[in-house]
């Protein structure tokens, strides 16, 4: 079987779950081969978990400056790997960085690029959801190597232990004039709540929440349900909640098992970011709010009465066991 190159997402010590998902997807197209880009020693640290999840080869593209420059080392590494291995496809996670790496690689190789795939079949046909979930599109690469950026959460990680071969790929020095240097990094403080895009439950507040203080009700319900907190653009624009929690067309797209919208009217801007959620619950005082027509369970009522009651009741039922 031909190799399918998978770019490994990692923090230097651990492989991110999205990579195990890619390895699952890659098996449909060929033998998964993991490409680790990092400082010397990284691939050796990550090899075992990668092999446990089915990576038949681990390519180490290491250099002391690999972490210092934005994206360029990963693009260079994949380009070199493609030329050495002639893979059937290249899969990367459709994260912010992954999409840029995939795009640059495709341009260099004159390859076919598919971004934000949610599924890939053995023939290489990728499924994408566009316009905030209003269309399902199936696309195929017809010219050149398929470079596919797969949305995190699209495949289940699977343990599939194999013996992985290891090979070194020589990374060229990074061109100073053509690469941005990363001079500082700060992790975004997420607190104890799950990350918004990967959460199974999301509780979002809109302008109906009335202010930053009102978001406590949203947070309390989210915490009882073990969910992430989101906000509509109207709530973010009004300064009720920070921008990085915005769900919608210009914010984040979420697709949880349960989405609870509190005081959100349901502007298309917002619906575009959440309407692929499996179950939607909406609470709104305004019986005309468009989101009520989209919800699986719509409550016309005051969120400050309904949400705390829901939170208390969930906690009470849990305790009752």
């Amino acid at each position, binding site marked *: 079987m031909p190799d399918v190159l998978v770019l490994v997402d990692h923090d230097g010590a651990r492989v991110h779950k999205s990579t195990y998902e890619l390895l699952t997807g890659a098996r449909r197209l060929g033998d998964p081969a993991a490409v680790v880009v990092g400082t010397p020693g990284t691939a050796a640290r990550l090899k075992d978990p990668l092999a446990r999840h089915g990576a038949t080869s681990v390519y180490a593209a290491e250099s002391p400056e690999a972490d210092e420059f934005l994206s360029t080392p990963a693009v260079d590494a994949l380009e070199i790997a493609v030329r050495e291995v002639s893979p059937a496809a290249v899969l990367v996670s459709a994260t912010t960085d992954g999409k840029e790496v995939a*795009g640059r690689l495709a341009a260099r190789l004159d390859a076919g690029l598919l971004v934000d795939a949610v599924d890939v079949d053995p023939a290489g046909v990728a499924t994408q959801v566009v316009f905030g979930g209003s269309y399902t599109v199936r696309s195929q690469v017809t010219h050149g190597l398929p470079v596919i950026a797969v949305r995190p959460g699209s495949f289940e990680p699977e343990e599939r232990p194999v013996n992985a071969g290891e090979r070194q790929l020589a990374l060229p020095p990074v061109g100073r004039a053509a690469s*941005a*240097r990363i001079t500082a990094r700060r992790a975004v403080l997420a607190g104890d709540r799950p990350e918004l895009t990967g959460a199974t439950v999301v509780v979002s507040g809109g302008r109906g929440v009335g202010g930053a203080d009102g978001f406590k009700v949203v947070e309390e319900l989210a915490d009882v349900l073990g969910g992430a907190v989101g906000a509509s653009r109207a709530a973010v624009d009004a300064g009720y909640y920070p921008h990085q929690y915005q769900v919608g067309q210009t914010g984040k797209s979420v697709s949880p098992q*349960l989405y609870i919208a509190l005081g959100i009217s349901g502007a*298309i801007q917002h619906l575009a970011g959440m309407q692929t959620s499996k179950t939607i619950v909406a609470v709104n005082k305004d019986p005309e709010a468009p989101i009520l027509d989209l919800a699986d369970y719509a409550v016309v009522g005051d969120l400050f009465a309904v949400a705390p009651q829901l939170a208390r009741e969930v906690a009470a*039922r849990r305790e009752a066991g």
Partner: protein
Amino acid sequence: MNIVVLVKQVPDTAAERTLSEADHTLDRENADLVLDEINERAAEEALTLKETAGAEVTVVSMGPDSALDAIRKVLAMGADRGIHICDDRLRGADLVTTAKVLAAAVRTVKDVALVLAGNATTDGQSSAVPAIVADLLGLPQLTHARELTVDAGRVRAERETDNGEATLDAPLPALVSVTEKINEPRYPSFKGIMAAKKKPVETVGLDDLFPDADGTGLLTTRTHVVEAVPRPARGVGIRVTDDGSAGRRLVDYLIAQKLV
């Protein structure tokens, strides 16, 4: 300093968007088209630099005749000149082709210090084109910037993504894509709108941008849409009016659905 701003005309996100049944491309005839709102912030950043550091701002857009409206809007905001890439052969262009064409248009502008773009457009949302353009032009990519400083031949950006925040530094020339957070775009003044009518806009096609190419390599379609299906509308769900017990009743529903 010469700055190029890449902008795109997109369907208004406040309205319904559809794909044409014939070739699965955006149905522009039935869409309300506007200058993409994040691109508008890229333009604002260019105009701020024009005011503070002195620059000539060229706005570039690829699209059919209507895209001229997006260019005129940025000219009305204060940009100096426009390049409109208009060629029927670009209908349905993929990401790589789009980036190659935009890069070629940037190359027609002399001594470019900075290329500015939005980090994503609200229609495609692939968020990959700025990085590809940077790679094709051999420029450093400083993407997803929520803050930008240009000083002494260098550019610094505060980058914010799902992975966290980072400070990026690179020599000019460079490409910067901005997020929605970077600024509040100005409104064109009446004077600006009148002045924009007299500003030069050059219309170019593929033959102008790639005089030596036979066009076949560039226009190779690398991907093919097998099918595009509108997602079924969500069925009408349960609707209750709170009588003081809605929260309790909702728990029964969530338990029945195995959601709690």
